[in-house]
């Protein structure tokens, strides 16, 4: 048993926990392009000070949170009815319906985002369709805007929203709904007062599973967004790969981590609780 605990503990300690300590240490250092790697160790908070005083970084933080939050909301509005419909479908059909939700997740993330590039480009499929139907003569390009980024996030993370929602909705005791309707509740009243509150754990889990990765997203804003789409994952990437400013990129990583600590903790707590309940 000692090895069973020790091996994963040691592995994750060395390759997951220790690197974070390094990120903190490097974030306190200074960028020095003459060195290889370009870092001068030290103890200064000026990287963090820069992140909180420069308008560009502040704007990137705010727009990351805003884009992630609105995308999460859209995914919830789309995912909840889907999860509900699957949970109420005939039991022998549910596995297939669920598998169809999960399948895109098993294909390449990069390729799913790429799929939207061809659809959204000017003169792309959607553009042509709008022209052909006469809905819009000269639709503006969607590719390269925040709209496209929202669409990409909802598309990529929808399965993460549907699965936990389905898990809670499927377990829901339908007897409670019958009781509500026997007592005179209309269907929508029963939904608002019984189904919705009881599916709350699923809503929280689904929203966190979409929100957390979206905040630090890089591929989606890079491929679907424009040059004016600011997201913090992209800032980190550019600081690191384009500007080779490792300390500043590390400081961005530290801030991103601090920002996400609360949602991650809520998520882990809820996971632990739902496992105990089983």
């Amino acid at each position, binding site marked *: *048993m000692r090895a*069973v*605990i020790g*091996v*994963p503990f040691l*592995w*994750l*300690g060395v*390759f*997951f926990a*220790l*690197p974070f300590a*390094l*990120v903190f240490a490097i974030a306190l250092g200074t960028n020095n392009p003459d060195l290889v790697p370009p870092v001068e160790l030290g103890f200064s908070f000026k990287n963090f000070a820069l992140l909180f005083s420069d308008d560009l970084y502040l704007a990137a933080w705010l727009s990351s949170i805003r884009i992630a939050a609105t995308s999460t909301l859209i995914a919830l509005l789309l995912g909840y*009815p*889907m999860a*509900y*419909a699957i949970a*109420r*479908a005939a039991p022998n059909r549910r596995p297939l319906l669920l*598998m*169809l*939700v*999960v*399948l*895109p997740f*098993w294909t*390449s*993330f*990069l*390729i799913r985002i*790429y*799929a939207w*590039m*061809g*659809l959204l*480009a000017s003169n*792309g*499929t959607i553009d*042509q369709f709008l022209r052909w139907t006469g809905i819009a003569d000269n639709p503006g390009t969607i590719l390269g805007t925040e709209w496209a980024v929202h669409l990409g996030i909802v598309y990529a993370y*929808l399965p993460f929203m549907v699965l936990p929602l389905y898990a809670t909705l499927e377990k829901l005791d339908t007897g409670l709904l019958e009781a509500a309707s026997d007592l005179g509740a209309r269907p929508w009243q029963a939904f608002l007062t019984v189904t919705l509150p009881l599916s709350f754990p699923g809503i929280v889990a689904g929203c966190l*599973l979409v929100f*957390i*990765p979206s*905040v*630090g997203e*890089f*591929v989606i804003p*890079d491929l679907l967004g424009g040059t004016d789409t600011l997201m913090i*994952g992209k800032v*980190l*990437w550019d600081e690191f790969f384009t500007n080779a400013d*490792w300390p500043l990129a*590390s400081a961005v*990583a530290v801030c*991103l*981590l601090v920002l996400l600590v609360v949602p*991650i903790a809520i998520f*882990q707590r809820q996971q632990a609780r739902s*496992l105990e309940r089983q």
Partner: protein
Amino acid sequence: MGRARFAFGVLAFGYAFLYLPIAMVIVYSFNESRLVTVWSGFSFKWWQALFANEAMLQAAWLSLRIAFASATTAAVIGLAAGYALVRARRFPGRTLFGSLVVAPMVMPEVVMGISMLLLFVGSERLMGGPDRGFLTIAVAHITFSIAFVAIVVQARLTDFDRSLEEAAMDLGATPWVTFRTITLPLLLPAVGSGWLLAFTLSLDDLILTQFVAGAQSQTLPMRVYSSVRLGVDPQINVLATIVVSVAACALMLSGWLTRKKV
């Protein structure tokens, strides 16, 4: 009646949203034109081009090898982690252990990428190695895959019938023999689907890989990314078609593995 129609409408819209973009990509892999938005006739031209693309094939081969190595290692460590989480009720640092196992699942990839690179750069300075490439990429992939295997194993173990294990112990089997002959075979389907998940995630990973890959090695997603950045490319459509077909098969296999013995 109105309800059934509503449910049908919701699902039809949802699945159309999920699958139409993928369907378009597949259709245009057989397009004759270089433009992936204009249909100009059926052709296998881009399929031939992809299979003659030496750099792409090399990247695919590297990715497959990394995915195999990292999924296999992650399956072993993840099995241990999942087992420890359910069966070892009390040990020092259990809460920390629990968070360490799950955290890589929800960690932003850019953060994990930069932190692992710093670790490898540090070890290069202190110990002179390892060189960045196959090994560092595999280690990075193992680290985030452990969580996914552990979760599947954990879920399987929580609704596990212990009477078989108890019977074996009563008949005089040592804990190790019991584990090998009873517990492990019953857990294998879960480990198998965890392995498949880890394999897929490794094959697909771009961000973490880009950080830890070094200058020499280029994996398939790195190739795809550098090509896609410049715009749409029909060869990527072909690749997408292959990936989607393989994923569909893998998912069916995984569904069959987990359903068989539950």
